[in-house]
């Protein structure tokens, strides 16, 4: 009790000091329903943001005199949503190559670092933010090893200002053995093969790629050891980048959807000592026990079609609740850029199909924070955490809800977007 009061008091003092130093004013949202995520819902309470942090949250939190007070009556306050897998900032218009930096040439790009190529002025960022998303994981795509991702806050004018944590993970694609899709290939003369041959080809390709990937990782591990022994070595950016992965210091997000591929990824990670996170995970429910046993978290997109024709129609919707029941850690992600704002509705679909509502919300707040090791700062409304907060007119998972305020690091964010501007410009055109 006393400790908390002292903490609050301390932070209030800090807040005042911060104010003096021309920092944003403290903000208090009063009389609102506060969904802390890390604790029970506060039906009617106050939250105070100051100096970029949450300094108070509770039924009777004290409001500093200098604070700007927002009346939260009838509203709900949430932690800023965290979208655990996107290409936000790396892509503007998918069909315009000049605006897309998601996928480097070649299969092996561990040295590609997403946060150095992010466009802070992307029109997509305010649009995501306006619906309550305040932090995203932005990751490169493609090939076998796509590159390194970072956690980004959706406010800032430079890539450095955006970056919350880099690197967050190394991104890889579990080889499926299938040819990579490419629109132009649809018009080529296809090579005709029997089913059995195609299955064999796929398997052979897959094995070849796995060997390749495995060798890369082991070479990187060996390089690291040589370095450790102070022996001269050639600088190889790719090997350096994989070194942290080989040592288990940097987690690997590996994309795998089919059950066999997920099991293969877990096996591969075990063989090479990797700290594994699965992205995609469409059939994760089929190997939930394995994922639980090996403590492999999953980044799930919910709005997908089931993999197999014979799957139950709602297999992708019930995927999260199946993992939840098995005790597997997971986050719900949009795996997109322009669609990031719809993150809460992916969570809603999981909830409609069996995931408890609080777990669904956690899957887009605290769970991704935990998976990427920033739960001490983000993902919940608790004293000491970063002041990433938004206010909504109701349940954020309800499509009809409006977001009225967004704060990133305690700074109020404009809800103006490209879309609201065009709306205003044309809504009354005769």
């Amino acid at each position: 009790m006393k400790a908390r009061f002292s903490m609050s008091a301390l932070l209030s003092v800090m807040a005042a000091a911060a104010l003096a130093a021309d920092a944003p004013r403290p903000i208090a949202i009063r009389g609102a329903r506060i969904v802390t995520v890390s604790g029970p819902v506060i039906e009617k309470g106050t939250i105070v943001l100051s100096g970029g942090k949450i300094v108070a949250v509770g039924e009777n939190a004290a409001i500093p005199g200098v604070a700007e007070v927002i009346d939260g009556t009838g509203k709900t306050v949430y932690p800023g949503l965290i979208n655990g897998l996107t290409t936000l900032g790396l892509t503007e218009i998918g069909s315009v190559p000049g605006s897309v930096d998601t996928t480097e040439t070649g299969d092996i790009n561990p040295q590609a670092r997403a946060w150095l190529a992010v466009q802070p002025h992307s029109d997509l960022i305010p649009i995501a933010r306006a619906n309550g998303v305040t932090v995203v994981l932005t990751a490169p795509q493609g090939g076998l090893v796509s590159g390194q991702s970072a956690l980004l806050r959706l406010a800032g004018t430079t890539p450095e200002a955006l970056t919350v944590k880099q690197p967050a993970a190394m991104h890889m694609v579990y080889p499926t053995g299938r040819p990579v899709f490419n629109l132009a290939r649809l018009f080529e003369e296809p090579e005709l093969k029997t089913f059995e041959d195609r299955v064999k080809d796929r398997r052979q390709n897959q094995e070849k790629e796995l060997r390749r990937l495995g060798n890369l990782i082991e070479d990187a591990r060996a390089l690291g050891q040589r370095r450790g022994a102070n022996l001269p070595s050639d600088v190889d950016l790719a090997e350096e980048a994989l070194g942290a992965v080989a040592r288990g210091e940097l987690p690997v997000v590996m994309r795998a959807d089919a059950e066999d591929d997920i099991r293969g990824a877990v096996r591969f990670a075990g063989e090479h000592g990797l700290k594994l996170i699965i992205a995609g995970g469409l059939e994760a429910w089929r190997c939930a026990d394995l994922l639980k046993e090996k403590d492999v978290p999953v980044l799930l997109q919910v709005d997908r079609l089931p993999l197999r024709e014979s799957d139950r129609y709602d297999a992708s919707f019930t995927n999260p609740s199946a993992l939840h029941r098995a005790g597997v850690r997971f986050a719900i992600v949009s795996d997109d850029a322009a669609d990031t704002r719809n993150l809460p509705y992916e969570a809603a679909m999981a909830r409609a199909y069996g995931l408890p509502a609080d777990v669904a919300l956690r899957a887009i707040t605290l769970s991704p924070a935990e998976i990427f090791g920033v739960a001490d700062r983000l993902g919940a409304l608790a004293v000491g955490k970063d002041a990433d907060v938004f206010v909504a007119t109701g349940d954020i998972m309800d499509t009809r809800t409006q977001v009225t305020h967004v704060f990133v690091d305690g700074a109020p964010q404009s809800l103006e977007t490209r879309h609201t501007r065009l709306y205003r410009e044309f809504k009354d055109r005769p």
Partner: protein
Amino acid sequence: MNALFLALLALASETIAIRGGTILTVGPQGTIANGTVLIRDGRIAAVGTDVAVPAGARVIDATGRYVIPGIIDAHSHTAIEGGVNECTNVVTAEVRIADVLDQHDVNIYRQLAGGVTAANVLHGSCNPIGGQNAVIKMRWGKGPSDLVFAGAPPGVKFALGENPKRSNFRVPGVTRYPATRMGVEVVLRDSFRRAQDYKREWEEYDRKVKAAGPKGERPVAPRRDLELDELRDILDGKVYVHAHCYRADEILMLIHLADEFGFKIRTFQHVLEGYKVASEIAKHGAGASTFADFWGYKMEAFDAIPYNAAIMASHGVNVSLNSDDDERARRLYWEAAKAVKYGGVSETEALKMVTLNPAWQLGVDKRVGSIEVGKDADIAIFSAHPFDPATRVEMTLVDGIVYFDRARDDGKATRAAGGAR
């Protein structure tokens, strides 16, 4: 053949009473709390709070549930086999989706599970003038010709903008006109000139035949051209035009062209910049079928805003929200809710955008789109309000037959129900 099928269907269907739910009729009766929908012979026989339930009727308890008209997806490529696009010639009005319906596409069932009862299955957007669409009902388990919504007016797909001009892909070894929006207009103009010539040619032939009389020498008829047949029928107002388009200027171009040749565009599809020219669309009398908030994937989709539906609707345009995607088609009820969020469309109007409005756009609003006496019993039953974040579709009926029942779906039902396996 279809008439026989429908007659047999009528004999086969049960009398059903859906009782005790909140009925969102989308019709003049509005919302009815604790109401009953009585279904007989595949049609809605009665709707209200004091509807008598005949003895022997199957009673579906809808207490605590929401009963809405079946959702209609005005832009779909579900259930097509052998290719969605005839992506070779520039004008392919002769090809017919109805020839290639795939009744085994499991997405029909998945969409039933999302409350969809009918869909406008379109040719793709590869050509300025594509092929003939097929309006279908999601009669999972029936043969391909039995999927067709009998009586739905025929239509042809047009496409403007980046796709027909191949901005974003190349076919190796193939150079195809048009490469610009200018060329798209040329193709359309040329096509309708040819259609006018064709029309004249046949009119002249008909005159000659008449003049020759029953015993006279019959001239050889002009070449029957399956492509020009459709274009002529568009000129004669017998065939709808569903035009995929994005940019405001190309929307205006098509309106002017249609006006010049004397035909109407029935719907603009996607029409993501429709909000910029909403009055013009309204004046022409076309409907607009758009995305709730899918945007940004192409240059021409970059000015798309989620307020598109609201702005067009406020200017008097009949607006529907569609999927163009098997995955999105399963959650059109939440897509509709986005019209409430973006632009403040009322919940009733928003629901109309996935029921009665697409029904009108497809020319079947006398038959479906609302829960009104005399209409087909195409109905979806939800566990909560369709816009509620916890809602789920529990049952879907088409022509008064239960094609989806969540309580009875065991995963294998999809196989058993689907097709003659």
